């Protein structure tokens, strides 16, 4: 019996859907892993919202330059054709819809595409939003990569988000360990199933009305 994807598998799966020539922002955490799996025969331009296009891999020990970091404050490198710009230009690039793809993590995604990924809403939690709300609306396609269930078994693809929202109706596709879900105006379409799960099984596990893509 084949199980669901592990985190590397999920990142790899997202990477396969990023086409040649795409301008892409990979969020902090699991989304960053996607860069490890980008097909080598595709030229893809990475954006980091702290002010750079053409970001290269994480810096090696002898390449570290503390003026050259990604949004997660990790030292990175610069590829030929890179450019630097200030924060107003960088977020204008996102808000203006110029990026092709943002890949984000999430606490919850609703079937209408609402995203919750910035704040647990806990009374004692210190809020910190950073670029999360800008990223949520910051690309032509917003992809979420997340495990389908929390550690205690709660489904994170939900009818309505209970966590504080990051953006409304902004998520296009959800890549999980069990399946890839396309969120469309007429419903949730299962694009691909991993391991031995079936769409019927997924519908039971999630309690959601799922539709299978024809063909």
């Amino acid at each position, binding site marked *: 019996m084949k199980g669901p994807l592990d985190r590397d598998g999920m990142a790899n799966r997202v990477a396969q859907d990023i086409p040649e020539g795409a301008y892409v922002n990979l969020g902090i955490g699991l989304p960053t892993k996607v860069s490890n799996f980008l097909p080598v025969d595709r030229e893809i331009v990475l954006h980091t919202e702290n002010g750079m*296009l*053409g970001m290269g891999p994480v810096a090696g020990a002898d390449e570290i330059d503390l003026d050259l970091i990604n949004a997660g404050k990790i030292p990175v490198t610069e590829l030929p*054709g890179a*450019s*630097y710009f200030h924060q107003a230009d960088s977020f204008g690039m996102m808000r*203006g*819809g110029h990026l092709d793809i943002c890949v984000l993590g999430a606490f919850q995604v609703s079937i209408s595409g609402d995203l919750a990924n910035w704040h647990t809403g806990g009374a004692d939690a210190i809020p910190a939003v950073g670029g999360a709300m800008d990223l949520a609306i910051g690309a032509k396609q917003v992809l979420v990569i997340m495990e389908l269930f929390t550690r205690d078994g709660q489904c994170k693809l939900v009818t309505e988000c209970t966590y504080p929202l990051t953006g409304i109706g902004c998520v296009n596709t959800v890549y999980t360990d069990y399946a890839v879900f396309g969120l469309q105006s007429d419903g949730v379409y299962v694009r691909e199933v991993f391991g031995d799960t079936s769409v019927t099984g997924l519908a039971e596990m999630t309690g959601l009305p799922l539709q299978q893509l024809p063909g």
Partner: protein
Amino acid sequence: MISKIVISAADAVRDIADGATVMVGGFGTAGQPIELIEALLEQGASDLTIINNNAGNGTTGLAALLAAGRVRKIICSFPRQVDSQVFDGLYRAGQLELELVAQGTLAERIRAGGAGIAAFFTPTAFGTALAEGKETRHINGRDYVLEDALVADYALIKAHQGDRLGNLVYRKTARNFAPMMASAATTTIAQVSQLVELGSLDPEAVVTPGIFTKRLVEVGGALPAVTEGQ
């Protein structure tokens, strides 16, 4: 491998359809993408809305496009110039719609369009004829006018150098409207005086990152040879 380079100005403008809104860079002739405009004239698209600081100089470039009857409306700040006879005639004959915008407001509306800002409150033109019919608001002791963003189907711009990713740098005051227009159009087409190898533009000095450029074409070479890169 990404390459946004197209072989000719004609190829670059081929898909511009009748009725399109087209931003055209330049302040007078500085930064005016003359070869792209000529290709557009040749291509034949009509019923265009043009966004430019001016409304054509002399009888070439934008003026020729106007003279050929291809333009329905022009959004600009300074149509009347000593050599704007083509515009003057069409405007007086009622054959061209004019939306007059203060120059800084024009620049800011285009920037807003590129940056996903829908509208903004500016103090410019408050209390003048150009603010008539517009929403106003008193904020922190000063009066402001609400202006909305401008976007376009195409931008035709001129840059100095560009690489295959579409990164662009400009020359002196010919930069003017091009960087904002590049960000505010669905399809931005740049004519460059010189194509350069990827990596030869200083990443700190790139003015228009390639993400904004869809196509670029090398034209002319009227400029003196320049040293590549930094």
